[in-house]
């Protein structure tokens, strides 16, 4: 039965190969069926495995083959399916499948060749993501880690004619690579100190005993750098909003539901290490909450429907990191799950809107879509409520768990978290109100074009909406008389999870405060924007927010441009005049010397003989003083 494990990545890989190689000869429906079918097959297998894991515990790890095996340096190509990865498998394949189905319709206008390419990329992405979560060691995870980066690059730059998209793609890849550098160094560190990267071997007492506290702090910090890159945390988050250049389903799948959560998966996976590194935990918590707030403030003033969602994603990821930082690993994973549901939903909904509006993404030119697109509207609303953390929607439970854990660590973290939650409610409903309420503000042509999306798009929306509503059920806290199924399920993996020791009354209080604040923000936004949406250019502080705190400009001015200047300096000055100059200078010096030396050959016999006589004199003098010269030479050398 364990051979099923290999089937999971195999299906998407096969889908990728078929769609990639034969994209010109297949027709669109077939491509769609192959692409979606592969993921569906994986999903089914994942489901089977999930139940196996649920009933029998983690499956044994078996190496497919020896990947690198040199002397004491051994890395296997092995998969590990346990509680944590099986959850992620379900999320990836499940949501992946929905998005594939959605895409068959969304991308229908592309030429067959590009349609095939698109599905090949999507399949490849799922394959990479599966490697990432299924790998039994850090190296296989890294393979998936970089693989998803690659697919993200390919998909962001899917419309490669547009150079802005290409820049965004490149930016995403490079930013990810900065993170990957941290990841890699951590892996090297582990390999150097522990000698292995298998999870099973690393997270054992004797392995950990080989590590000093400094080692652990360094490794965890470096791993976190990796996570920050992939999961768009400060300071490496700027690529994610730009990544919205890709097709919208891609944004939903990669930049909201799955890939960006890889960092959370990785830290959750390494929770044993992280619990030993308090410095790192604090850093993670602080960066997490800072990211959550920063992104939320930016989202307040964005007018591009996808950008709002993108910053919202960054913000939610910040929450997840906050959870990881305060030790609420389950909470983080829980939030990953629920966030996957509602963020995928929101993105797909946004896609549906964009699809209807003929490619328009500016919410100022929308409005009143409620009546044109009922399904989209309704599901979008569900998503907004879920993300705003309204009970009993899924977002409430997961966010609440994180906030509770944060409170246990520090009330300040909790306070900031609640502030962020309120902002989330505010900007999400600003988005909702501006888009769906009021009256349509676009051109007549656009208005004429407005329509509800086809079934292939709406069915996934409905499914996701359903999940967004009920998804919280797996993690109902005990305070609300739940059993927190997820917590129990994951506890074999997340062994170092510390449940916050809060009284039920405290928990009720915290919930109430956050819900009330969020609700207030929600209502305020709804009230403010449903009638009089913000249409002009923002001014004052709003402008700063609209321009994302000028962080991109700052990076350009502080890092990118100096680096490019430096590279120019190296290229034009150091290389040309310096090093090559010396090399050529030697040649030129020889020529110069040649020009000078040939003048000795004056053509005059008298001079020649004079030189000869002088040379004889010199020879005699050298002979005469040879002892002195030798002494001198010995001193010099």
């Amino acid at each position, binding site marked *: 039965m364990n051979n099923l494990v290999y089937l999971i990545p195999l299906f998407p890989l096969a889908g990728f190969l078929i769609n990639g190689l034969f994209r010109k000869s297949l027709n669109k429906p077939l491509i769609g069926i192959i692409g979606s079918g592969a993921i569906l097959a994986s999903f089914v297998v994942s489901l089977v495995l999930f139940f196996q894991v649920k009933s029998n515990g983690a499956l044994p790890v078996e190496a497919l083959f020896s990947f690198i095996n040199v002397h004491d340096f051994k890395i296997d190509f092995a998969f590990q399916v346990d509680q944590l990865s099986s959850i992620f498998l379900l999320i990836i394949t499940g949501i992946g499948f929905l998005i594939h189905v959605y895409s068959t319709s969304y991308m229908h206008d592309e030429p067959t060749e590009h349609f095939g390419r698109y599905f090949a990329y999507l399949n490849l992405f799922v394959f990479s993501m599966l490697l990432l979560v299924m790998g039994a060691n850090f190296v296989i995870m890294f393979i998936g880690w970089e693989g998803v980066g690659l697919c993200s690059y390919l998909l962001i730059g899917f419309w490669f004619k547009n150079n802005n998209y290409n820049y965004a793609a490149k930016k995403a890849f490079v930013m990810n690579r900065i993170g990957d550098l941290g990841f890699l160094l951590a892996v090297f560190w582990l390999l150097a100190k522990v000698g292995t990267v298998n999870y099973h071997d690393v997270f054992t007492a004797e392995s950990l005993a080989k590590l000093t506290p400094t080692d652990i702090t360094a490794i965890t910090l470096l791993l976190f750098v990796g996570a920050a890159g992939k999961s768009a945390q400060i300071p490496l988050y700027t690529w994610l909003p730009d990544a919205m250049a890709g097709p919208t389903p891609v944004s939903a799948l990669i930049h909201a539901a799955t890939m960006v959560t890889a960092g959370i998966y990785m830290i959750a996976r390494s929770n044993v290490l992280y619990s030993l590194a308090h410095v790192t935990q604090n850093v993670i918590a602080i960066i997490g909450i800072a990211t959550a707030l920063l992104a939320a403030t930016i989202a307040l003033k964005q007018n591009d429907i996808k950008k709002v969602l993108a910053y919202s994603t960054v913000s939610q990821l910040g929450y997840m990191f906050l959870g990881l930082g305060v030790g609420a690993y389950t909470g983080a994973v829980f939030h990953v799950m629920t966030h996957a549901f509602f963020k995928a939903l929101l993105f797909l909904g946004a896609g549906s809107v964009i699809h209807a509006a003929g490619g328009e993404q500016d919410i100022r030119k929308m409005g009143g879509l409620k009546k044109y697109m009922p399904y989209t509207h309704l599901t979008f609303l569900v998503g907004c409520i879920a993300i705003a953390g309204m009970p009993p929607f899924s977002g409430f439970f997961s966010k609440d768990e994180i906030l509770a854990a944060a409170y246990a660590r520090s009330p300040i973290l909790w306070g900031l978290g609640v502030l962020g939650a309120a902002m989330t409610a505010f900007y999400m409903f600003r988005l909702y109100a501006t888009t769906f309420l009021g009256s349509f503000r676009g051109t007549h042509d656009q208005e004429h074009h407005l329509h509800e999306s086809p079934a292939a798009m709406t069915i996934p929306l409905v499914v996701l909406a359903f999940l967004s509503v009920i998804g919280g059920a797996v993690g109902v806290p005990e305070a609300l008389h739940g059993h927190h199924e997820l917590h129990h399920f994951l506890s074999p993996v997340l062994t170092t999870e510390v449940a916050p020791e809060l009284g039920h009354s405290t928990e009720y209080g915290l919930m109430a405060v956050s819900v009330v604040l969020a609700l207030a923000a929600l209502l305020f936004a709804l009230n403010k924007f449903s009638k009089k949406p913000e249409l002009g250019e923002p001014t004052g502080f709003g402008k700063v927010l609209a321009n994302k705190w000028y962080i991109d400009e700052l990076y350009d001015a502080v890092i990118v441009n100096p680096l490019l200047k430096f590279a120019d300096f190296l290229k034009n000055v150091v290389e040309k005049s310096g090093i090559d100059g010396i090399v050529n200078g030697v040649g030129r010096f020889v020529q110069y010397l040649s020009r000078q030396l040939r003048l000795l050959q*004056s*053509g*005059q*016999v*008298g001079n020649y003989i004079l030189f000869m006589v002088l040379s004889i004199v010199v020879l005699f003098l050298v002979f005469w003083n040879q002892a002195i010269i030798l002494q001198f030479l010995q001193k010099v050398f």
Partner: protein
Amino acid sequence: MPIQYYIALSVCLFCIGIVGVLTRRNVIIIFMCIELMLNSVNLLLVAFSKMYNAPAFAANPASTVGIDGQLFVFFIMVVAAAEVSVGLAIIVMMYRNTHSIDVNFLNRLKN
């Protein structure tokens, strides 16, 4: 006579020859100075020959120790004569072409 006197004398003549070669421009005179150098060597050789002969002669008047020096001088004279013939031929040839015997005139070949 102390041998050092002879050495000094011929060194002196030799150096005068060299100075002559260096300071004059007339090819023939330069050539003559070279002959002067050769002659100083001849004198030196004869002196050395007699120097080595001295102790041997005292022991045995028929001894020919040192005679090789004088024979060498003989060969130098022979060679010098041959050289002069060739040298003068070259000088004459050059004079025919350029109507000059100035060494400084010879500077087509340089650098």
